[in-house]
């Protein structure tokens, strides 16, 4: 309640050392619809919930390709997000032009964070009201960064932002330890499961989520950043549901298999 005195502009500190305008901007991120990002050593996946403004309209685009090796998913003021995506695309293209090499994803995240910081230190500006999950490739593999309106950025193995993202985060916290060695398909399935957590009851289908992946194959060639087609997403969702419905059968099947392993294998006879 007392904070209203010091929240008029971003260049005013509160006595507790807080910039309320920046914190309000982070609230805007929490209001946006959910996005999740996960990465393994070689691949990074971004997924977002598609929320149409009304029944008559199409959904807001939240996942953008920034370069062949990088993309972003955003939550919050999508107009701010669009402008920042254009900035990121520009930086990647400029670097490619001069150096004929992809801009390392860590540098991309740093440039974005520096741009966001500027808006927290000018009295005639306001912070960007959008949080971005930046996913892409580096010399050292796949990376995922989260850029806040505050100008901070963090690297993550997996993260979720937007409304009801806590449910997704809880899901990811339980499973992220193994992500380093996940296959791309496992990553996508976990991303879909995390998105499902944020839907809370609503049925997950290919029409209410977007998934994108970028990675590097074992032979070194790049699988460029691209959205996964609706048909494939639906396939994966369906296969996940089948696996869920058959846990009882699966565990009893496993016991049978273990039983037959104890008996002599055919080739030993």
């Amino acid at each position, binding site marked *: 309640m007392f904070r209203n005195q010091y929240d008029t502009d971003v260049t005013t500190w509160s006595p507790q050392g807080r910039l309320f305008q920046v914190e309000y901007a982070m609230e805007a991120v929490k209001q946006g619809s959910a996005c999740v990002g996960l990465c393994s050593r070689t691949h990074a996946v971004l997924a977002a919930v598609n929320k149409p403004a009304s029944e008559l309209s199409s959904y807001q685009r939240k996942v953008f390709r920034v370069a062949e090796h990088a993309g972003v998913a955003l939550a919050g003021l999508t107009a701010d997000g669009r402008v920042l995506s254009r900035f990121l695309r520009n930086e990647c293209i400029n670097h490619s032009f001069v150096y004929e090499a992809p801009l390392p994803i860590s540098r991309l995240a740093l440039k974005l964070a520096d741009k966001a910081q500027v808006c927290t230190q000018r009295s005639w500006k306001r912070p960007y009201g959008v949080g971005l999950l930046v996913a892409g490739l580096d010399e050292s593999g796949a990376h995922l960064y989260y850029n806040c309106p505050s100008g901070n950025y963090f690297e993550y193995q997996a993260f979720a932002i937007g409304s009801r993202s806590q449910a997704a985060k809880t899901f990811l916290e339980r499973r992220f330890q193994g992500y380093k060695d996940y296959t791309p398909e496992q990553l996508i399935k976990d991303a879909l499961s995390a998105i499902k957590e944020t839907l809370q009851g609503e049925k997950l289908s290919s029409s209410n989520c977007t998934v994108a992946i970028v990675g590097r194959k074992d032979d*070194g060639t790049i699988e460029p950043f691209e959205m996964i087609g609706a048909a494939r997403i639906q396939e994966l969702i369906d296969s996940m549901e089948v696996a869920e419905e058959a846990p009882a059968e699966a565990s009893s099947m496993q016991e049978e298999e273990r039983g037959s392993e104890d008996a002599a294998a055919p080739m030993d006879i």
Partner: protein
Amino acid sequence: MDGFAKSIGGGGPNVPAGSHPAGGSQAAAGGGATQRTQYPYVTGTSVIALKYKDGVIMACDTGASYGSTLRYKSVERIKAVGKHSIIGASGEYSDFQEILRYLDELTLSDHMWDDGNSLGPKEIHNYLTRVMYNRRNKFDPLWNSLVIGGVKKGPKGDEKYLGMVNMIGTHFEENHVATGFGNHLAIPILRAEWHEDMTFEEAVKLVEKCLLVLLYRDRSSINKFQIAKITTEGSTIYPPYSLKTYWGFTHFENPAQGAVGSW
């Protein structure tokens, strides 16, 4: 190309007739509001380089000429750049020093990002291509032919890189390159005898063969060479040394034999 920019006959640098159309004469004729680079003054001659098993080997002599005078004899024309590359230059030496300053700034800003990424030879080559081409478009070229070699760990393992860029911005990547007279004297030898995965000793022998030919036939070369190599371990520029030459050919004895005259 740099070889041809040298003078015909005596003393300091002269404007060669019909030389490179770098817009020089037109600018001067206009009364010279701004002078543009028209011809080089202190120049280095050929640089040769080739890829071998562990990386890239580069060599050149340590001379710098002032026109037809062999003015400076201990000039280092190959330098290390960052952790992964070496660069060699022929042509105007002061322009090479300027390029080294640009690369210093690049390496410094790379270091200041402090994020574990570093510029590899491919990035440096392309950066220099942009610089050279943009200068040429302003009719104010950096009068050099540059050779950039290096090794960097890529997604497919250690990747060797060797490329060349010259004063008009022509650039390419190859297994072996040469500048100046090296294009005419060394490249044919390299084409005949280079093969994939040469050992260091084989590479040095091949390089010395080319350097010897250049020493015999390029009048602006001197008998003092430096070899440099770049591998995953880093760059090494070896101290200068000389090659043994042989002048005892029968045709060199009594050279006026077939041309009787009063001199």
